[in-house]
């Protein structure tokens, strides 16, 4: 009797676990089969769970075997024979064990009208800009193609080739064709890698993250145009790495700025060499430290220092720049902010020398400063694929913040702007933008113009 009771107890225990588990597994497998094969229809008696499960497992195994036998998609990286020959130490459970669904996607299955990836990446920016009293001016601002190549898992190439303003014509004031990036990465350890070539200077938010869907506003922030001269790229080499716990760094030695092209309105912006006629006699040093250890929070700080006098004989002023920035998202709210200050020593002597050369006083400041804050709100529910973002950005930027002795600041370059607008994203990689820009300055003589901007930008 005790034997029978024990047997019944065990059998009950097994059945108590079996029936709901079987139902759950059958339902799960049927759901996944429908993802893999939209024409799939369940078969078998609803009561015969074991039979249905066995049939489903066989069918899924067949389907996965067929897919495994098919040639891989072009974009997929095929593992090297050396990697696949030996049993990997960290092993993905093979698809043959289909009942456990080792590799599964919860994304919807690919449909005929789904996006298809090309072997190159890129981004584009088309704008309509209007200043008060003027008409709309269309501008295909940027057409950028990006190419990369992996020589091996440790040596990788990356490049960015850009056409600005749609046209380049010899001898005319038109657009520009530029090599924005072209560098090799030598990946050694997570915390220590080497990089060399044409590189983006790691300063601020936008300079290294300037894909149009990655920021609000048709044009980039003024502070990250006039105080931090994006897109700022130079020739050089350096080290990069991930220090763990969310800390990453980049430290480069790069070609220096050209002080002969600094001015009052745009500060150091004109001094970028962009790799053309650059000098490495006194290479500049730049470093950035970032913290991204908490989801949706990124904090960063950058420092730059270097002499810039290779085109101003006898005067070799030092440019230093310090910058702090942060981005944070909380539920449907985004915040970003940045502060940057630039120092230029021997600014008085530089002004004097440039005035001797050109006859015009460039009135370059010895300090330039700017900051901005930008709150934004996503007004559509997160579950929807479309996104509408309302934003407002306040910017204060003064390229005449501190003047050398004997020079008076020009108040029209002590500026502030409110940029308010909306970004509509029908896809995470496509941004349709509108904004209104209220420009102000401290001058009682020169009044700035407000502006309206429309734009569409995309990344692929």
């Amino acid at each position, binding site marked *: 009797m005790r*034997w029978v009771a*024990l047997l019944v107890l*065990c059998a009950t*225990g*097994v059945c108590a*676990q*079996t029936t709901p*588990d079987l139902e759950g597994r059958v339902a799960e497998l049927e759901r996944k089969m429908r993802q893999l094969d939209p024409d799939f229809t369940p078969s078998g008696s609803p009561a015969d769970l074991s039979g249905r499960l066995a049939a489903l497992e066989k069918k899924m195994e067949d389907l996965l075997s067929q897919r495994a036998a098919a040639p891989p998609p072009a*974009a*997929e*990286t095929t593992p090297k024979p050396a*990697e*696949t020959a030996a*049993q*990997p*130490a*960290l*092993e*993905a*459970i093979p698809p043959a064990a289909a*009942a*456990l*669904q*080792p*590799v599964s*996607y*919860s*994304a*919807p299955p690919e449909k005929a009208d789904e996006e298809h*990836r090309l072997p190159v*990446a890129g981004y584009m920016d088309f704008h309509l800009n209007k200043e008060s009293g003027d008409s709309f001016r269309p501008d295909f601002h940027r057409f950028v193609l*990006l190419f*990369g190549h992996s020589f091996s*898992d440790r040596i*990788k190439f*990356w490049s960015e080739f850009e056409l600005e303003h749609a046209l380049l014509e010899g001898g005319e004031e038109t657009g520009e064709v530029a090599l924005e990036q072209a560098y090799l*990465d030598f*990946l050694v350890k*997570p915390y220590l*890698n080497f990089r060399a070539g044409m590189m*983006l200077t790691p300063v601020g938010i936008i300079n*290294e*993250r*300037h*894909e149009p*869907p*990655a920021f609000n506003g048709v044009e980039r922030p003024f502070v990250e145009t006039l105080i931090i001269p994006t897109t700022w790229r130079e020739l050089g080499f350096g080290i990069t790495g*991930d220090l*763990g716990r*969310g800390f*990453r760094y980049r430290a480069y030695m790069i070609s220096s700025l050209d002080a002969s092209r600094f001015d009052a309105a745009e500060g150091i912006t004109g001094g970028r060499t962009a790799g053309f006629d650059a000098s490495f006699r006194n290479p500049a040093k730049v470093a950035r430290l970032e913290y*991204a*250890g908490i*989801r949706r929070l990124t904090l960063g700080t950058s420092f730059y220092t270097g002499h810039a006098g290779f085109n101003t004989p006898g005067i070799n002023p030092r440019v230093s720049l310090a910058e702090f920035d942060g981005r944070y998202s909380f539920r449907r709210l985004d915040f970003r902010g940045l502060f940057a200050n630039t120092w230029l020593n021997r600014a008085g002597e530089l002004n004097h020398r440039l005035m001797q050369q050109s006859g015009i006083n460039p009135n370059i400041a010895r300090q330039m400063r700017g900051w901005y804050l930008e709150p934004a709100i996503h007004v559509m529910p997160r*579950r*929807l*694929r479309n*996104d509408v973002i309302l934003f407002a950005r306040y910017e204060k930027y003064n390229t005449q913040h501190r003047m050398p002795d004997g020079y008076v600041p020009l108040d029209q370059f002590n500026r502030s702007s409110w940029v308010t607008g909306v970004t509509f994203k029908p896809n*995470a*990689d496509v941004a349709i933008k509108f904004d209104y820009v209220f420009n102000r300055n401290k001058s009682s003589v020169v009044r700035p113009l407000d502006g309206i901007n429309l734009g569409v930008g995309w990344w692929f």
Partner: protein
Amino acid sequence: MKRLCLLLLCSAAFAAQKADSGKPDRVITIVAERFTFNPSKIVLKEGETAEFVLLSDDTDHGFRIPSAGVDLAIPQQSKGEARVRFVARKRGKYVFECSRPCGAGHNLMRGVIIVK
């Protein structure tokens, strides 16, 4: 003896049920965003089964572990997630990286799985 056999039979039935339930030892969510994985360092115990839930906070990314022959697409924000399950068979460090070009910092969008 018969009693022992019966008990073993019952135990085996329970054990088979548990194994078939397919629950990993750990489920770890990894969020990809230009140009970082968060977390970028994952520590597993030897023999542990871990399931990674891969999400993007912006564009499409990839999740490639060269030493395991794995290369998955991570769908862009609000277009779902990718999942992959591993058995950590041997101690060591295994680098994972983004395999879908995503911008200027793509080459350094990497992380490491440490099996202890």
